[in-house]
Protein backbone atom coordinates (compact mmCIF):
# COMPACT_ATOMS: atom_id res chain seq x y z
CA UNK A 1 0.00 0.00 0.00
CA UNK A 2 1.30 3.44 -0.91
CA UNK A 3 0.54 6.05 1.72
CA UNK A 4 1.21 9.74 1.20
CA UNK A 5 1.25 12.16 4.13
CA UNK A 6 1.22 15.93 3.60
CA UNK A 7 2.98 17.81 6.38
CA UNK A 8 3.54 21.47 7.20
CA UNK A 9 6.20 23.29 9.17
CA UNK A 10 4.65 25.84 11.51
CA UNK A 11 5.82 28.22 14.25
CA UNK A 12 4.95 27.30 17.82
CA UNK A 13 2.98 30.19 19.23
CA UNK A 14 1.55 29.01 22.56
CA UNK A 15 4.42 30.37 24.69
CA UNK A 16 5.55 33.16 22.40
CA UNK A 17 4.83 36.88 22.54
CA UNK A 18 3.70 37.37 18.96
CA UNK A 19 4.46 40.48 16.94
CA UNK A 20 2.59 41.35 13.74
CA UNK A 21 5.02 42.19 10.94
CA UNK A 22 5.17 45.38 8.83
CA UNK A 23 2.91 44.00 6.09
CA UNK A 24 0.21 43.50 8.77
CA UNK A 25 -0.56 40.21 7.04
CA UNK A 26 1.83 37.96 8.91
CA UNK A 27 3.73 37.57 12.15
CA UNK A 28 7.37 38.29 12.85
CA UNK A 29 8.86 34.80 12.98
CA UNK A 30 12.30 35.85 14.32
CA UNK A 31 13.05 33.90 17.47
CA UNK A 32 10.08 31.59 17.05
CA UNK A 33 10.52 27.83 17.30
CA UNK A 34 9.26 25.85 14.30
CA UNK A 35 8.07 22.28 14.28
CA UNK A 36 5.76 19.90 12.49
CA UNK A 37 2.09 20.93 12.58
CA UNK A 38 0.52 19.04 15.48
CA UNK A 39 -2.27 17.43 13.40
CA UNK A 40 0.24 16.32 10.77
CA UNK A 41 2.30 14.57 13.44
CA UNK A 42 -0.72 12.40 14.23
CA UNK A 43 -1.17 11.77 10.50
CA UNK A 44 2.43 10.56 10.16
CA UNK A 45 1.98 8.27 13.16
CA UNK A 46 -1.27 6.91 11.70
CA UNK A 47 0.55 6.12 8.45
CA UNK A 48 3.37 4.34 10.30
CA UNK A 49 0.91 2.25 12.31
CA UNK A 50 -0.87 1.20 9.09
CA UNK A 51 2.48 0.30 7.54
CA UNK A 52 3.52 -1.64 10.64
CA UNK A 53 0.26 -3.61 10.50
CA UNK A 54 0.18 -4.45 6.81
CA UNK A 55 3.30 -3.20 5.10
CA UNK A 56 3.58 -0.53 2.44
CA UNK A 57 5.53 2.57 1.65
CA UNK A 58 5.13 6.03 3.17
CA UNK A 59 6.01 9.20 1.29
CA UNK A 60 5.90 12.51 3.13
CA UNK A 61 5.43 15.74 1.20
CA UNK A 62 5.82 19.34 2.34
CA UNK A 63 5.51 22.63 0.48
CA UNK A 64 8.05 25.28 1.42
CA UNK A 65 11.68 26.40 1.65
CA UNK A 66 14.71 24.33 2.61
CA UNK A 67 13.87 24.67 6.33
CA UNK A 68 10.97 22.31 5.67
CA UNK A 69 13.51 19.53 5.33
CA UNK A 70 13.61 19.58 9.17
CA UNK A 71 10.05 18.29 9.46
CA UNK A 72 10.49 15.94 6.50
CA UNK A 73 13.62 14.47 8.05
CA UNK A 74 11.85 14.09 11.37
CA UNK A 75 9.11 12.13 9.59
CA UNK A 76 11.77 9.94 7.95
CA UNK A 77 13.28 9.27 11.39
CA UNK A 78 9.82 8.41 12.64
CA UNK A 79 9.37 5.75 9.96
CA UNK A 80 8.49 7.31 6.59
CA UNK A 81 10.35 5.92 3.57
CA UNK A 82 10.61 8.84 1.17
CA UNK A 83 10.37 12.60 1.42
CA UNK A 84 9.62 15.19 -1.24
CA UNK A 85 9.76 18.96 -0.86
CA UNK A 86 7.77 21.14 -3.25
CA UNK A 87 9.36 24.53 -3.58
CA UNK A 88 9.24 27.46 -5.96
CA UNK A 89 9.17 31.25 -5.51
CA UNK A 90 5.87 31.13 -7.45
CA UNK A 91 4.28 29.13 -4.60
CA UNK A 92 4.63 32.01 -2.13
CA UNK A 93 1.37 33.62 -1.13
CA UNK A 94 -0.68 30.53 -1.99
CA UNK A 95 -3.91 30.07 -0.06
CA UNK A 96 -5.34 26.69 0.91
CA UNK A 97 -6.74 25.92 -2.55
CA UNK A 98 -3.52 26.89 -4.33
CA UNK A 99 -1.61 24.75 -1.82
CA UNK A 100 -3.93 21.85 -2.66
CA UNK A 101 -3.19 22.39 -6.38
CA UNK A 102 0.56 22.16 -5.72
CA UNK A 103 0.15 19.00 -3.66
CA UNK A 104 -2.26 17.48 -6.18
CA UNK A 105 0.19 18.07 -9.02
CA UNK A 106 2.88 16.14 -7.13
CA UNK A 107 0.62 13.35 -5.89
CA UNK A 108 -0.85 12.64 -9.35
CA UNK A 109 2.61 11.49 -10.42
CA UNK A 110 2.97 9.10 -7.48
CA UNK A 111 1.27 5.77 -6.79
CA UNK A 112 -1.21 6.41 -3.97
CA UNK A 113 -3.75 4.25 -2.15
CA UNK A 114 -4.20 6.48 0.85
CA UNK A 115 -3.49 10.16 1.42
CA UNK A 116 -3.38 11.60 4.93
CA UNK A 117 -3.29 15.23 6.01
CA UNK A 118 -3.85 16.89 9.35
CA UNK A 119 -7.35 18.31 9.92
CA UNK A 120 -5.92 21.82 9.98
CA UNK A 121 -2.73 23.78 10.51
CA UNK A 122 -1.65 25.39 13.76
CA UNK A 123 -0.79 28.67 12.09
CA UNK A 124 -3.47 29.64 9.57
CA UNK A 125 -6.15 27.20 10.68
CA UNK A 126 -7.87 27.00 7.28
CA UNK A 127 -8.73 23.33 7.64
CA UNK A 128 -9.18 23.28 3.88
CA UNK A 129 -6.10 21.81 2.17
CA UNK A 130 -7.04 18.18 2.85
CA UNK A 131 -10.59 18.33 1.55
CA UNK A 132 -9.65 20.57 -1.41
CA UNK A 133 -6.93 18.09 -2.32
CA UNK A 134 -9.43 15.20 -2.26
CA UNK A 135 -11.70 17.19 -4.59
CA UNK A 136 -8.88 17.92 -7.04
CA UNK A 137 -7.74 14.30 -7.09
CA UNK A 138 -11.36 13.18 -7.32
CA UNK A 139 -11.00 10.92 -4.30
CA UNK A 140 -13.50 9.92 -1.61
CA UNK A 141 -12.56 11.54 1.69
CA UNK A 142 -13.41 11.78 5.35
CA UNK A 143 -12.47 14.68 7.60
CA UNK A 144 -11.84 14.78 11.39
CA UNK A 145 -10.86 11.11 11.47
CA UNK A 146 -10.23 9.53 14.87
CA UNK A 147 -10.00 5.85 13.95
CA UNK A 148 -8.97 3.87 10.85
CA UNK A 149 -9.69 0.22 10.12
CA UNK A 150 -8.48 -1.22 6.83
CA UNK A 151 -9.92 -4.35 5.26
CA UNK A 152 -8.66 -5.06 1.78
CA UNK A 153 -9.52 -2.08 -0.39
CA UNK A 154 -12.19 -0.84 2.01
CA UNK A 155 -11.73 1.37 5.01
CA UNK A 156 -13.97 1.96 8.00
CA UNK A 157 -13.22 5.26 9.69
CA UNK A 158 -14.60 7.13 12.65
CA UNK A 159 -15.22 10.86 12.45
CA UNK A 160 -15.42 13.15 15.46
CA UNK A 161 -18.50 15.37 15.29
CA UNK A 162 -19.77 18.14 17.53
CA UNK A 163 -21.78 17.32 20.61
CA UNK A 164 -19.78 14.21 21.39
CA UNK A 165 -21.12 12.35 18.37
CA UNK A 166 -19.01 9.89 16.43
CA UNK A 167 -19.80 8.94 12.85
CA UNK A 168 -18.67 5.71 11.17
CA UNK A 169 -18.03 5.79 7.42
CA UNK A 170 -17.02 3.25 4.83
CA UNK A 171 -14.75 4.38 2.02
CA UNK A 172 -13.15 2.61 -0.92
CA UNK A 173 -9.46 3.10 -1.59
CA UNK A 174 -7.86 5.15 -2.94
CA UNK A 175 -9.10 7.79 -0.50
CA UNK A 176 -8.04 10.80 1.53
CA UNK A 177 -8.42 11.29 5.29
CA UNK A 178 -7.82 14.38 7.37
CA UNK A 179 -6.54 13.22 10.74
CA UNK A 180 -7.72 14.56 14.07
CA UNK A 181 -5.42 14.88 17.10
CA UNK A 182 -5.83 12.11 19.64
CA UNK A 183 -6.25 9.35 17.03
CA UNK A 184 -3.01 7.81 18.36
CA UNK A 185 -0.01 8.61 20.51
CA UNK A 186 2.71 9.85 18.16
CA UNK A 187 6.01 8.20 18.99
CA UNK A 188 9.01 10.16 20.17
CA UNK A 189 11.68 10.94 17.59
CA UNK A 190 15.12 10.85 19.15
CA UNK A 191 18.03 13.07 18.19
CA UNK A 192 20.04 9.99 17.23
CA UNK A 193 17.15 8.86 15.06
CA UNK A 194 17.17 12.19 13.23
CA UNK A 195 20.97 12.01 12.84
CA UNK A 196 20.64 8.55 11.33
CA UNK A 197 18.59 9.93 8.43
CA UNK A 198 20.62 13.15 8.13
CA UNK A 199 22.15 12.09 4.83
CA UNK A 200 19.01 10.70 3.25
CA UNK A 201 18.21 12.62 0.10
CA UNK A 202 15.08 14.74 0.01
CA UNK A 203 13.92 15.41 -3.54
CA UNK A 204 12.91 19.02 -4.32
CA UNK A 205 10.43 19.81 -7.09
CA UNK A 206 9.53 23.21 -8.53
CA UNK A 207 6.59 24.58 -10.50
CA UNK A 208 7.95 23.53 -13.90
CA UNK A 209 8.57 19.95 -12.78
CA UNK A 210 4.99 19.84 -11.53
CA UNK A 211 3.74 21.40 -14.78
CA UNK A 212 2.14 24.26 -12.87
CA UNK A 213 1.96 27.70 -14.44
CA UNK A 214 2.37 30.91 -12.46
CA UNK A 215 -1.29 31.83 -12.61
CA UNK A 216 -2.36 28.53 -11.07
CA UNK A 217 -0.44 29.07 -7.82
CA UNK A 218 0.60 31.94 -5.57
CA UNK A 219 -1.76 34.90 -5.08
CA UNK A 220 -3.03 34.64 -8.68
CA UNK A 221 -4.06 31.04 -8.29
CA UNK A 222 -5.67 31.59 -4.89
CA UNK A 223 -9.34 32.02 -4.10
CA UNK A 224 -8.75 34.18 -1.01
CA UNK A 225 -6.14 36.62 0.27
CA UNK A 226 -5.25 37.69 3.79
CA UNK A 227 -6.28 41.33 4.20
CA UNK A 228 -5.08 42.06 7.71
CA UNK A 229 -3.91 40.45 10.91
CA UNK A 230 -4.52 42.10 14.27
CA UNK A 231 -4.90 41.36 17.95
CA UNK A 232 -8.48 41.69 19.14
CA UNK A 233 -8.85 44.79 21.34
CA UNK A 234 -8.72 44.08 25.06
CA UNK A 235 -12.24 43.97 26.43
CA UNK A 236 -13.55 45.28 29.72
CA UNK A 237 -14.50 43.31 32.79
CA UNK A 238 -11.18 41.99 34.06
CA UNK A 239 -10.52 42.69 37.71
CA UNK A 240 -7.03 42.32 39.13
CA UNK A 241 -7.17 41.36 42.79
CA UNK A 242 -4.49 43.05 44.88
CA UNK A 243 -3.15 42.31 48.34
CA UNK A 244 -1.32 39.55 50.21
CA UNK A 245 -1.87 35.94 49.21
CA UNK A 246 -4.42 35.50 52.03
CA UNK A 247 -6.31 38.66 51.11
CA UNK A 248 -6.32 37.66 47.45
CA UNK A 249 -7.66 34.20 48.29
CA UNK A 250 -10.35 35.65 50.53
CA UNK A 251 -11.46 38.16 47.90
CA UNK A 252 -11.51 35.44 45.25
CA UNK A 253 -13.63 33.09 47.36
CA UNK A 254 -16.04 35.96 48.04
CA UNK A 255 -16.47 36.67 44.31
CA UNK A 256 -16.94 33.01 43.45
CA UNK A 257 -19.56 32.67 46.19
CA UNK A 258 -21.38 35.84 45.10
CA UNK A 259 -21.59 34.64 41.50
CA UNK A 260 -22.91 31.27 42.54
CA UNK A 261 -19.70 29.33 41.79
CA UNK A 262 -19.91 27.51 45.11
CA UNK A 263 -22.77 27.06 47.55
Amino acid sequence: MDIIVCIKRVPETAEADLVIDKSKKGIDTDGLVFSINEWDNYAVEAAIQLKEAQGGKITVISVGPEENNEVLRRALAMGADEAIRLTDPAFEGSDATAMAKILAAAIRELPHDLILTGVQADDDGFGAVGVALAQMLDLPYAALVTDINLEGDTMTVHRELEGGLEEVDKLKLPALLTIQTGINEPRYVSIMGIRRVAKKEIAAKGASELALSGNEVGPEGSMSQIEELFFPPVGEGAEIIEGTMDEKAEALVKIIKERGGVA
Partner: protein
Amino acid sequence: MEEQQQPLAERLDLFACIQCGKCTGGCPVSIRSPLNIRKVIRESTVREDLHIFFNRLEIWDCTTCSTCAIRCPRGLSPVDAIIGLREMMVEEGKIEKTVIDALDGAYKYGNPWGRAKNKRAEWAQDLDIPNAMEMEPGQVLYFVCCAASYDPRIQVIAKSLVAVLRAAGVSFGILGNKEVCCGSEIRRMGEAGLFEMLMEENMKNFAKIDPGVIVTTSPHCMNALKNDYDGLGCDVKHYSQFVWGLIEEGKLTFDTPVPMKVTYHDPCYLGKQNGVFDEPRDILKSIPGIDFVEFGRCRENSLCCEGGGGRMWMEGTGIGKRLSEVRVEDALEMGVEAIITACPFCLLTLEDAVKTTGNEEKLKVIDLMELASMAIGNSPETENEF
Protein backbone atom coordinates in the same frame (compact mmCIF):
# COMPACT_ATOMS: atom_id res chain seq x y z
CA MET B 1 29.15 9.75 22.54
CA GLU B 2 29.12 6.89 20.04
CA GLU B 3 25.93 5.13 19.25
CA GLN B 4 25.45 2.14 21.53
CA GLN B 5 25.67 -0.94 19.35
CA GLN B 6 27.06 -3.18 22.04
CA PRO B 7 24.52 -5.16 24.03
CA LEU B 8 23.62 -3.57 27.32
CA ALA B 9 25.00 -6.35 29.53
CA GLU B 10 28.40 -6.28 27.83
CA ARG B 11 28.65 -2.51 27.76
CA LEU B 12 27.92 -2.25 31.49
CA ASP B 13 29.80 -5.42 32.47
CA LEU B 14 26.61 -6.81 33.99
CA PHE B 15 27.92 -10.40 33.68
CA ALA B 16 30.06 -9.59 36.71
CA CYS B 17 26.91 -9.40 38.83
CA ILE B 18 26.75 -12.07 41.55
CA GLN B 19 23.03 -11.54 42.19
CA CYS B 20 23.64 -10.79 45.87
CA GLY B 21 20.62 -8.46 45.91
CA LYS B 22 22.26 -5.62 47.83
CA CYS B 23 21.05 -3.29 45.08
CA THR B 24 17.39 -4.16 45.50
CA GLY B 25 17.85 -4.25 49.27
CA GLY B 26 19.06 -0.66 49.23
CA CYS B 27 16.74 0.59 46.48
CA PRO B 28 14.44 3.19 48.07
CA VAL B 29 11.64 2.81 45.53
CA SER B 30 11.51 -1.00 45.84
CA ILE B 31 9.38 -0.44 48.95
CA ARG B 32 6.52 0.91 46.85
CA SER B 33 7.27 -0.14 43.28
CA PRO B 34 7.52 -3.51 41.50
CA LEU B 35 10.95 -2.41 40.29
CA ASN B 36 13.47 -5.09 41.24
CA ILE B 37 16.86 -3.92 40.06
CA ARG B 38 18.62 -7.24 40.80
CA LYS B 39 16.10 -9.02 38.58
CA VAL B 40 16.47 -6.39 35.86
CA ILE B 41 20.23 -7.04 35.82
CA ARG B 42 19.70 -10.80 35.66
CA GLU B 43 17.20 -10.54 32.84
CA SER B 44 19.43 -8.15 30.91
CA THR B 45 22.18 -10.77 30.94
CA VAL B 46 20.11 -13.79 29.92
CA ARG B 47 17.48 -12.38 27.58
CA GLU B 48 18.38 -11.87 23.97
CA ASP B 49 15.55 -9.51 23.22
CA LEU B 50 15.27 -6.68 25.69
CA HIS B 51 11.89 -5.66 24.31
CA ILE B 52 10.46 -7.62 27.24
CA PHE B 53 11.14 -4.51 29.32
CA PHE B 54 9.21 -2.18 27.03
CA ASN B 55 5.85 -2.66 28.67
CA ARG B 56 7.20 -2.47 32.19
CA LEU B 57 6.38 1.01 33.36
CA GLU B 58 8.31 0.44 36.59
CA ILE B 59 11.55 0.95 34.63
CA TRP B 60 10.54 4.62 34.90
CA ASP B 61 10.14 4.42 38.70
CA CYS B 62 13.90 4.53 39.23
CA THR B 63 14.96 7.93 40.58
CA THR B 64 18.61 7.31 39.62
CA CYS B 65 19.56 8.03 43.23
CA SER B 66 22.39 5.51 42.71
CA THR B 67 22.16 3.77 46.09
CA CYS B 68 22.47 0.51 44.10
CA ALA B 69 25.77 1.61 42.60
CA ILE B 70 27.14 2.68 45.97
CA ARG B 71 26.25 -0.65 47.56
CA CYS B 72 27.26 -3.02 44.76
CA PRO B 73 30.16 -5.15 46.07
CA ARG B 74 31.32 -5.75 42.49
CA GLY B 75 31.53 -2.06 41.76
CA LEU B 76 28.86 -2.20 39.07
CA SER B 77 26.38 0.54 38.34
CA PRO B 78 22.94 -1.11 38.14
CA VAL B 79 21.31 2.30 37.68
CA ASP B 80 23.06 2.58 34.31
CA ALA B 81 21.19 -0.54 33.18
CA ILE B 82 17.93 1.31 33.84
CA ILE B 83 19.19 4.31 31.86
CA GLY B 84 20.33 1.93 29.09
CA LEU B 85 16.87 0.36 28.88
CA ARG B 86 15.27 3.79 28.79
CA GLU B 87 17.65 4.71 25.95
CA MET B 88 16.35 1.76 23.95
CA MET B 89 12.75 2.79 24.57
CA VAL B 90 13.56 6.37 23.57
CA GLU B 91 15.21 5.18 20.36
CA GLU B 92 12.05 3.30 19.43
CA GLY B 93 9.94 6.25 20.50
CA LYS B 94 7.94 4.13 22.92
CA ILE B 95 7.78 6.42 25.91
CA GLU B 96 5.10 8.15 27.95
CA LYS B 97 3.57 11.42 26.77
CA THR B 98 4.82 13.36 29.81
CA VAL B 99 8.37 12.22 29.07
CA ILE B 100 7.97 13.12 25.38
CA ASP B 101 6.79 16.59 26.38
CA ALA B 102 9.80 17.08 28.67
CA LEU B 103 12.24 15.95 25.95
CA ASP B 104 10.51 18.03 23.27
CA GLY B 105 10.60 21.04 25.57
CA ALA B 106 14.32 20.62 26.18
CA TYR B 107 14.94 20.22 22.43
CA LYS B 108 12.89 23.18 21.28
CA TYR B 109 13.20 25.59 24.19
CA GLY B 110 16.25 24.38 26.13
CA ASN B 111 14.20 23.48 29.21
CA PRO B 112 12.07 20.41 29.97
CA TRP B 113 9.05 22.52 30.89
CA GLY B 114 8.89 23.94 27.36
CA ARG B 115 8.89 27.53 28.60
CA ALA B 116 9.96 30.34 26.29
CA LYS B 117 13.70 30.77 25.81
CA ASN B 118 13.55 34.53 26.07
CA LYS B 119 11.94 34.32 29.51
CA ARG B 120 14.77 32.30 31.01
CA ALA B 121 16.40 35.26 32.71
CA GLU B 122 13.18 36.99 33.73
CA TRP B 123 13.76 36.05 37.40
CA ALA B 124 16.90 38.18 37.36
CA GLN B 125 15.60 41.24 35.54
CA ASP B 126 15.72 43.53 38.59
CA LEU B 127 18.94 42.09 39.98
CA ASP B 128 21.39 43.63 37.51
CA ILE B 129 23.55 40.50 37.24
CA PRO B 130 26.43 40.85 34.74
CA ASN B 131 26.25 38.94 31.47
CA ALA B 132 28.79 36.14 31.77
CA MET B 133 29.56 36.35 28.06
CA GLU B 134 31.20 39.72 28.71
CA MET B 135 33.18 38.65 31.78
CA GLU B 136 36.95 38.42 32.04
CA PRO B 137 38.28 34.83 32.05
CA GLY B 138 38.68 33.12 35.42
CA GLN B 139 35.57 34.59 37.04
CA VAL B 140 32.63 32.90 38.78
CA LEU B 141 29.87 31.66 36.47
CA TYR B 142 26.56 31.00 38.16
CA PHE B 143 24.83 28.20 36.21
CA VAL B 144 21.18 28.72 37.15
CA CYS B 145 19.51 25.99 35.05
CA CYS B 146 15.84 25.34 34.41
CA ALA B 147 13.97 24.90 37.69
CA ALA B 148 15.54 28.01 39.21
CA SER B 149 14.93 30.00 36.03
CA TYR B 150 11.26 29.17 35.55
CA ASP B 151 9.68 27.76 38.72
CA PRO B 152 8.56 30.64 40.95
CA ARG B 153 9.26 28.64 44.12
CA ILE B 154 12.77 27.74 42.98
CA GLN B 155 13.53 31.25 41.70
CA VAL B 156 13.65 32.12 45.40
CA ILE B 157 16.72 29.90 45.79
CA ALA B 158 18.47 31.69 42.92
CA LYS B 159 17.61 35.13 44.34
CA SER B 160 18.76 34.08 47.81
CA LEU B 161 22.04 32.76 46.43
CA VAL B 162 22.58 36.04 44.57
CA ALA B 163 22.04 37.94 47.85
CA VAL B 164 24.49 35.68 49.69
CA LEU B 165 27.17 35.95 46.99
CA ARG B 166 26.84 39.72 46.97
CA ALA B 167 27.09 39.89 50.76
CA ALA B 168 30.39 38.03 50.44
CA GLY B 169 31.59 40.44 47.75
CA VAL B 170 31.76 37.79 45.02
CA SER B 171 31.50 39.09 41.48
CA PHE B 172 29.82 36.66 39.15
CA GLY B 173 27.82 36.45 35.94
CA ILE B 174 25.04 34.39 34.42
CA LEU B 175 24.47 33.18 30.86
CA GLY B 176 20.93 34.56 30.82
CA ASN B 177 18.89 33.44 27.82
CA LYS B 178 21.97 31.75 26.31
CA GLU B 179 21.95 29.09 29.01
CA VAL B 180 20.28 25.77 28.16
CA CYS B 181 19.33 22.84 30.35
CA CYS B 182 22.34 20.98 31.77
CA GLY B 183 20.73 17.80 30.44
CA SER B 184 21.07 15.78 33.64
CA GLU B 185 17.48 14.59 33.68
CA ILE B 186 17.38 14.31 29.88
CA ARG B 187 20.26 11.84 29.95
CA ARG B 188 18.60 9.88 32.74
CA MET B 189 15.33 9.72 30.84
CA GLY B 190 17.34 7.97 28.13
CA GLU B 191 17.78 10.72 25.51
CA ALA B 192 21.54 10.45 25.05
CA GLY B 193 21.57 12.36 21.76
CA LEU B 194 19.65 15.30 23.16
CA PHE B 195 21.86 15.34 26.25
CA GLU B 196 24.88 15.58 23.99
CA MET B 197 23.29 18.45 22.06
CA LEU B 198 22.57 20.42 25.25
CA MET B 199 26.05 19.69 26.57
CA GLU B 200 27.64 20.95 23.36
CA GLU B 201 25.60 24.16 23.49
CA ASN B 202 26.63 24.88 27.09
CA MET B 203 30.24 23.85 26.49
CA LYS B 204 30.46 26.28 23.57
CA ASN B 205 29.48 29.12 25.88
CA PHE B 206 31.72 27.90 28.71
CA ALA B 207 34.66 27.88 26.30
CA LYS B 208 34.00 31.51 25.34
CA ILE B 209 33.71 32.61 28.97
CA ASP B 210 36.55 30.49 30.34
CA PRO B 211 35.28 30.70 33.94
CA GLY B 212 37.42 29.93 36.99
CA VAL B 213 34.57 28.08 38.63
CA ILE B 214 30.98 27.22 37.76
CA VAL B 215 28.54 27.36 40.67
CA THR B 216 25.21 25.56 40.27
CA THR B 217 21.82 25.87 41.95
CA SER B 218 21.10 22.18 41.71
CA PRO B 219 23.17 19.15 42.68
CA HIS B 220 21.83 17.53 39.50
CA CYS B 221 23.46 20.20 37.32
CA MET B 222 26.65 20.06 39.36
CA ASN B 223 26.80 16.31 38.85
CA ALA B 224 26.09 16.56 35.12
CA LEU B 225 28.68 19.27 34.50
CA LYS B 226 31.27 17.58 36.66
CA ASN B 227 30.76 13.91 35.83
CA ASP B 228 28.84 13.71 32.55
CA TYR B 229 30.32 16.57 30.49
CA ASP B 230 33.37 15.64 28.43
CA GLY B 231 36.43 17.78 29.03
CA LEU B 232 34.90 20.75 30.80
CA GLY B 233 38.29 21.81 32.13
CA CYS B 234 37.10 24.00 34.97
CA ASP B 235 36.02 23.53 38.54
CA VAL B 236 32.31 22.91 39.21
CA LYS B 237 30.78 23.46 42.62
CA HIS B 238 27.34 23.15 44.07
CA TYR B 239 26.44 26.36 45.87
CA SER B 240 26.81 24.66 49.26
CA GLN B 241 30.46 23.91 48.54
CA PHE B 242 31.14 27.39 47.20
CA VAL B 243 29.35 29.23 50.00
CA TRP B 244 31.06 27.15 52.68
CA GLY B 245 34.36 28.11 51.04
CA LEU B 246 33.39 31.79 51.43
CA ILE B 247 32.66 31.24 55.13
CA GLU B 248 35.97 29.46 55.65
CA GLU B 249 37.84 32.28 53.94
CA GLY B 250 36.13 34.74 56.26
CA LYS B 251 34.31 36.50 53.41
CA LEU B 252 30.88 35.63 54.70
CA THR B 253 29.49 35.69 58.22
CA PHE B 254 25.99 35.19 59.49
CA ASP B 255 25.01 37.93 61.94
CA THR B 256 21.24 37.59 62.09
CA PRO B 257 20.04 34.76 64.30
CA VAL B 258 17.46 32.42 62.80
CA PRO B 259 15.98 30.68 65.83
CA MET B 260 14.64 27.45 64.42
CA LYS B 261 14.86 23.74 65.10
CA VAL B 262 15.72 22.09 61.80
CA THR B 263 16.90 18.90 60.17
CA TYR B 264 18.74 18.47 56.89
CA HIS B 265 17.67 16.27 53.98
CA ASP B 266 20.63 15.05 51.91
CA PRO B 267 19.93 15.36 48.16
CA CYS B 268 21.09 12.10 46.51
CA TYR B 269 22.98 13.91 43.78
CA LEU B 270 24.88 15.99 46.34
CA GLY B 271 25.47 13.41 49.08
CA LYS B 272 25.42 9.84 47.83
CA GLN B 273 26.73 10.62 44.37
CA ASN B 274 29.25 13.35 45.07
CA GLY B 275 30.13 12.91 48.72
CA VAL B 276 29.09 16.42 49.70
CA PHE B 277 27.73 15.76 53.19
CA ASP B 278 29.59 18.18 55.44
CA GLU B 279 29.46 21.54 53.67
CA PRO B 280 25.67 21.98 53.91
CA ARG B 281 25.75 20.94 57.55
CA ASP B 282 28.68 23.25 58.26
CA ILE B 283 26.76 26.17 56.75
CA LEU B 284 23.71 25.29 58.86
CA LYS B 285 25.73 25.07 62.04
CA SER B 286 27.34 28.45 61.40
CA ILE B 287 23.96 30.19 61.44
CA PRO B 288 23.24 31.56 64.92
CA GLY B 289 20.02 30.33 66.47
CA ILE B 290 19.80 27.12 64.45
CA ASP B 291 19.11 24.02 66.50
CA PHE B 292 20.20 21.19 64.21
CA VAL B 293 19.18 17.55 64.53
CA GLU B 294 19.91 14.70 62.10
CA PHE B 295 17.39 12.47 60.42
CA GLY B 296 17.80 8.83 61.47
CA ARG B 297 18.43 8.08 57.80
CA CYS B 298 21.05 10.61 56.83
CA ARG B 299 24.21 11.02 54.78
CA GLU B 300 24.92 7.81 52.77
CA ASN B 301 21.71 6.29 54.11
CA SER B 302 19.52 9.27 53.32
CA LEU B 303 16.09 8.43 51.94
CA CYS B 304 15.58 9.57 48.34
CA CYS B 305 12.74 12.11 47.77
CA GLU B 306 11.80 10.48 44.42
CA GLY B 307 12.35 13.68 42.43
CA GLY B 308 15.32 12.60 40.29
CA GLY B 309 15.88 10.54 37.15
CA GLY B 310 13.06 12.15 35.24
CA ARG B 311 10.54 11.52 38.00
CA MET B 312 9.60 15.21 37.92
CA TRP B 313 7.81 14.23 34.69
CA MET B 314 6.64 10.76 35.69
CA GLU B 315 4.44 10.08 38.68
CA GLY B 316 5.62 6.45 38.73
CA THR B 317 3.74 3.22 39.37
CA GLY B 318 4.45 3.14 43.10
CA ILE B 319 1.62 2.59 45.54
CA GLY B 320 1.20 3.77 49.11
CA LYS B 321 3.08 6.55 50.80
CA ARG B 322 5.49 8.58 48.74
CA LEU B 323 9.00 8.55 50.15
CA SER B 324 8.80 12.33 50.50
CA GLU B 325 5.75 11.80 52.73
CA VAL B 326 7.72 9.32 54.83
CA ARG B 327 10.40 11.95 55.14
CA VAL B 328 7.88 14.57 56.28
CA GLU B 329 6.43 12.23 58.88
CA ASP B 330 9.90 11.41 60.20
CA ALA B 331 10.63 15.11 60.51
CA LEU B 332 7.41 15.76 62.40
CA GLU B 333 8.25 12.97 64.81
CA MET B 334 11.59 14.61 65.46
CA GLY B 335 9.76 17.80 66.38
CA VAL B 336 11.56 20.07 63.93
CA GLU B 337 10.04 23.23 62.49
CA ALA B 338 11.64 22.85 59.10
CA ILE B 339 13.39 20.46 56.76
CA ILE B 340 16.34 22.19 55.14
CA THR B 341 17.51 20.90 51.81
CA ALA B 342 19.83 21.98 49.01
CA CYS B 343 18.22 20.76 45.79
CA PRO B 344 15.29 22.20 43.78
CA PHE B 345 13.73 18.78 43.19
CA CYS B 346 13.98 17.80 46.88
CA LEU B 347 12.43 21.13 47.83
CA LEU B 348 9.49 20.66 45.47
CA THR B 349 8.79 17.02 46.35
CA LEU B 350 9.11 17.58 50.10
CA GLU B 351 6.98 20.70 50.01
CA ASP B 352 4.33 18.77 48.05
CA ALA B 353 4.46 16.05 50.68
CA VAL B 354 3.93 18.60 53.47
CA LYS B 355 0.77 19.67 51.62
CA THR B 356 -0.52 16.18 50.76
CA THR B 357 -0.09 15.08 54.37
CA GLY B 358 -1.88 18.23 55.58
CA ASN B 359 1.01 19.53 57.65
CA GLU B 360 1.40 23.02 56.24
CA GLU B 361 0.88 24.56 59.66
CA LYS B 362 3.42 22.34 61.36
CA LEU B 363 6.37 21.99 59.02
CA LYS B 364 8.25 24.12 56.50
CA VAL B 365 10.61 23.07 53.76
CA ILE B 366 13.34 25.64 53.27
CA ASP B 367 16.30 25.73 50.97
CA LEU B 368 19.69 26.19 52.57
CA MET B 369 20.23 29.45 50.64
CA GLU B 370 16.91 30.86 51.78
CA LEU B 371 18.08 30.27 55.32
CA ALA B 372 21.51 31.75 54.59
CA SER B 373 19.87 34.81 53.06
CA MET B 374 17.82 35.27 56.26
CA ALA B 375 20.99 34.89 58.31
CA ILE B 376 22.59 37.85 56.53
CA GLY B 377 19.59 39.96 57.46
CA ASN B 378 17.22 39.57 54.51
CA SER B 379 13.56 38.96 55.08
CA PRO B 380 12.22 35.72 53.68
CA GLU B 381 11.47 35.90 49.94
CA THR B 382 8.35 33.75 49.97
CA GLU B 383 5.57 35.50 51.79
CA ASN B 384 3.72 32.29 52.46
CA GLU B 385 6.56 30.15 53.56
CA PHE B 386 7.46 31.64 56.90
